[in-house]
């Protein structure tokens, strides 16, 4: 038995096969901050074979009370780079890759492509929803965590296996506005709180790899570290979900855009099509009220303005093709 891992391999849940599963697993950690610090350390210590670290940020003095991968010597350096060096020293069995940029809709598919499981340790709704949607579309496993002062919550998803379980968009169809709840910087956080929730996330992730029981998909674990009260709250799959329903509006990762009431995503048979690039002179007075008109142009901007004007004139049966011809 490998001495490094013998204390966990003694566990019937781990053993030789479990340790092999850990060695063969490929885990991407997005966000190397307060949650990411314990996640990365325990993944490497447990012998996870491939670890990716994605973070665009640099180590700041105000990070050190909770981001315990970093020391005073690391100030100003890339978090992903410093974390990679740390993990390399901790366990040479792990292959560690660093991605020293911010995750966005253009790069996320490529960054995720070599990994099976993603641990979301980011600190903002935009990133959390982007990562969630990408994990759904690219069929990855996902463990989410977030904290607020002395409280936090975690969620687990296995989008590789679960078609019938809810996704996060079933509960929150739209990304909450960033201003509606403050982050750690504004609200304050005790370092240990991110340590506890990061550790909980990593515990779920390791159990996922070992194919043990984890928090049910479609439930939130909430835990208040002030009074230690804990709840598991369930939500249901929504038939109107913009992501996991039968007719989803989110079908690829793109810049977050909310369709207006004037827009549709694709040309459908019943529309009378008007190509504004060829004929910009549509006469509203001659429009047939029994027809539905679909206007399109190169990028969907001109046609959107056009439809808004027509609607103001009282023509309700008019639509603009989102993204235009280029968007197809």
């Amino acid at each position: 038995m490998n001495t490094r891992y013998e204390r966990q391999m003694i566990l019937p849940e781990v053993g030789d096969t479990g340790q092999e599963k850990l060695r063969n697993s490929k885990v991407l950690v997005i966000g190397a901050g307060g949650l990411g610090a314990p996640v990365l350390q325990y993944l490497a210590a447990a012998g996870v074979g491939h670890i990716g670290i994605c973070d665009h940020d640099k180590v700041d003095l105000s990070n050190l009370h909770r981001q315990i991968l970093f020391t005073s010597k690391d100030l100003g350096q890339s978090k992903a780079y410093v974390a990679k060096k740390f993990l390399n020293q901790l366990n040479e069995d792990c292959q560690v890759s660093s991605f020293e940029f911010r995750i966005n809709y253009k790069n996320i598919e490529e960054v995720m492509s070599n990994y099976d499981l993603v641990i979301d340790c980011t600190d903002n709704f935009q990133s959390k929803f982007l990562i969630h949607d990408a994990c759904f579309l690219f069929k990855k496993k996902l463990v989410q965590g977030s904290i607020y002062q002395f409280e936090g919550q975690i969620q687990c998803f296995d989008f590789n296996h679960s078609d019938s379980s809810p996704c996060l968009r079933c509960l929150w169809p739209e990304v909450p506005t960033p201003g509606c709840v403050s982050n750690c910087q504004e609200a304050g956080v005790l370092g240990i709180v991110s340590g506890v929730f990061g550790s909980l996330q990593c515990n779920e992730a390791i159990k996922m790899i070992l194919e043990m029981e984890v928090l049910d998909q479609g439930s939130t674990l909430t835990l208040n570290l002030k009074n230690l009260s804990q709840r598991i709250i369930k939500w249901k799959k929504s038939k109107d979900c913009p992501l996991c329903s039968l007719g989803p509006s989110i079908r690829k990762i793109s810049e977050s855009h909310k369709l207006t009431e004037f827009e549709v995503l694709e040309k459908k048979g019943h529309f009378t099509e008007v190509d504004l690039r060829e004929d910009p002179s549509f006469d509203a007075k001659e429009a047939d009220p029994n027809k539905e008109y679909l206007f399109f142009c190169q990028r969907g901007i001109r046609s959107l303005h056009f439809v808004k004007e027509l609607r103001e004139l009282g023509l309700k049966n008019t639509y603009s093709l989102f993204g235009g011809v280029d968007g197809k």
Partner: protein
Amino acid sequence: MYKKVKIEYFAVLREQAKINSEELETSSADARELLSELTSKYNFSLNESTLKVAINEEYCEFTTKLNEGDRVVFIPPVAGG
């Protein structure tokens, strides 16, 4: 008709209510009425569009009727990391 419910507050709502939980005799028929009753009491900065409500450990609609003994939790989204 008055009923007794147990309410728990999460994250920013806990901060604003300055309590973890309370038991309340209320005439509110559903979660929506209860939230507006509590908002006038605690001056919550969040409203229905930025909050979720769970009754007896299940997220539900704000139109869900309240029953005697229900445990109601108001949960804002949380994003810190």
